[in-house]
């Protein structure tokens, strides 16, 4: 979906075209440009919706300095796939009244979409979705990670999240004892 924007394009022509365009151009932290439908962007991302409504979309590519090209590509890919999938009642309700609607299980295509991602890509996508205020994408990615965490020991969690154990041996022993009840099976 990366687009190569001709530099020779006349300023005027572009401005006129931009006003009628039904896509927006997004620029990743490493300078790559991606195009996504304006409708999908506004519907799926509260941040992009705000920027579109506020007219702060940059014709040359709106800078998203926090998002790398791989994550942005996945964001755009998700938006396109979402636009193509038949919007189910579940998705409509979760995007409209997200503050009260319970979490809807990921749809089949959403599950496949996150399943193919590496851990790195998945975590980056969570950050991107969080940054862009994409509720549904955040739901789907967080759901995936929470599934990865289920039944894992603290050691395994450290491994998945690449976290250093900063407890001393004594401290760990103490907290383990405090939480002994949480280590028993139900």
């Amino acid at each position, binding site marked *: 979906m990366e687009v190569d924007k001709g530099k020779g394009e006349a300023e005027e022509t572009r401005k006129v075209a931009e006003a009628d365009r039904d896509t927006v151009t997004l620029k990743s932290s490493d300078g790559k440009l991606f195009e996504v439908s304006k409708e999908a962007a506004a519907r799926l991302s509260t941040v992009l919706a705000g920027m579109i409504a506020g007219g702060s979309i940059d014709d040359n590519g709106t800078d998203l300095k926090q998002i790398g090209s791989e994550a942005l590509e996945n964001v755009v890919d998700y938006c396109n796939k979402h636009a193509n999938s038949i919007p189910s009642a579940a998705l409509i309700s979760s995007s409209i009244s997200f503050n009260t609607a319970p979490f809807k299980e990921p749809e089949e295509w959403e599950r496949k979409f996150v399943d193919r991602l590496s851990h790195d890509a998945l975590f980056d996508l969570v950050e991107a979705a969080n940054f862009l205020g994409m509720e549904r994408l955040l739901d789907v990615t967080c759901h995936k990670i929470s599934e990865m965490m289920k039944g894992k020991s603290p050691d395994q969690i450290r491994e998945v999240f*690449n976290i250093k154990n900063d*407890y001393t041996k004594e401290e760990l022993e103490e907290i383990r004892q405090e939480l002994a009840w949480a280590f028993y099976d139900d």
Partner: protein
Amino acid sequence: MAHKSILQKPPLEAQTSPQFLAGFRPHGFLLGDGQLRQSSIPAISGCSYVPLPPRYCNFLSRGAQSLTISISSRSPASQVVLGGMDCSKRSAGAVASLPEDPLVEILSRVPFKSICRFKCVSKAWRDLIADPLHRKKLPQTLEGFLLYEDSEDCGSKDRPRLCVHFVDVLGRSVRPLDPCFSFLAELPGNENIMLLHYCNDIFLFARPCNSDTSVSYIVCNPATEQWVAVPSSGRTGSLLLAGCTFTYLIFDPATDSSFHLVQFWMERNDSSVHTYSSKTRVWSHKKCDWLGHGYYCIAPNSPDGYVKGMLHLILYGLGGKDQLVSVDVEGNIQKNIPPPARARTGCWLFSDYVGKSQGRLHYIYHEHKFDTGIKERWRKELLIWVLQDYDTQQWVLKDTVRFSKLFGENEHIKESDYNVVAIHPDHNLVYLIKHWNQKLISYDMDSKQVRDVTDVCTLGHGYGCIIPYVPYFSDLSSLENKQ
């Protein structure tokens, strides 16, 4: 000193009986073969629910201030808190650290016990999980039961009226709350408060006046120690506790922070319903045309059947089947839900409990069937049903367990010998209290295991009622610590 309010000292019989808090069952009822059966089931408020804290809390403000909030969540500080390493230095094969917001969002989908275990991951995770701000978003679960005493010496100088023990079902040694509600009971005028009802982890207390027979109320969240006073509905203390008054608290964190009280005054020919809203702060009164007509009495054992914005009550039928009704905050019946039943004849059915677990309404009753086997005797079974689809009223039989499995080979167990106290909000677990030896037991529908939870009698006193406790950590604007 003015004459003692009857609330301060109910008749001995009422004091020692759990019924005085939760109403009583005046007559027997029957199903199946048409004979009236006497029963007096001690009523224990029991049940619970545990709402996942609104998962979208952190999203609520995002729509309006999306950009700011999103960006702030990416602040270097929060990145450092959670990640073991800097993102930019991520090595091949290593995985990202995550900003605080999404990590809380992820943890909010992980079971309560796992989250507690994850406190061992690192100090940053421990602090994140323990942070009161995040606690609101993370799932909570049934932590234990509050056991209210009804003993004689309660109310004396040394023992406050509200004598409560906390039984921790998680096996922790540290109490998660002050079971005596000192923050309430020690305030002037609150010496004799007593628990009436609870809904979605918020409690309703009656506050008898010291100088006359009037009763006002207190609604309180034990986890945050927030509370608010509610004026009298006009019902005097003696009638409030006499078994002809049914008071319900309705609170739904998924909707807003407001609460409602619905109080039924049952009279022979003139029943009425009295409702209070925390928004208007006034009681309204009207006739109740359905109570006392056809159905005689509201069952006490439907303490927290709050599902789909409706209170669910079991109505004991006279000469007919029990009914399950959904009642709105105005006290009107919105729906008549036929209780589940197996297509069997010659069975007696006895409603035990209605409550919510895993977001769905559950209905528990027991069947008596005369078994003409080798040894003629009554076969008694507890049946646990779930309302799988609320709209189509489709009940599914979740489990059946024989009394002999639950209580041992004691064939003389009557319905007055036990109570279903609660159904676990997240698991297929039912809690029961055995009155004859005061043991709280749990029955696991998945593993079919019966376990002793606690010996209530070891606590030294009888119990008035047993309340499941699930903390709810959100601040509620409707509870503002006001008299």
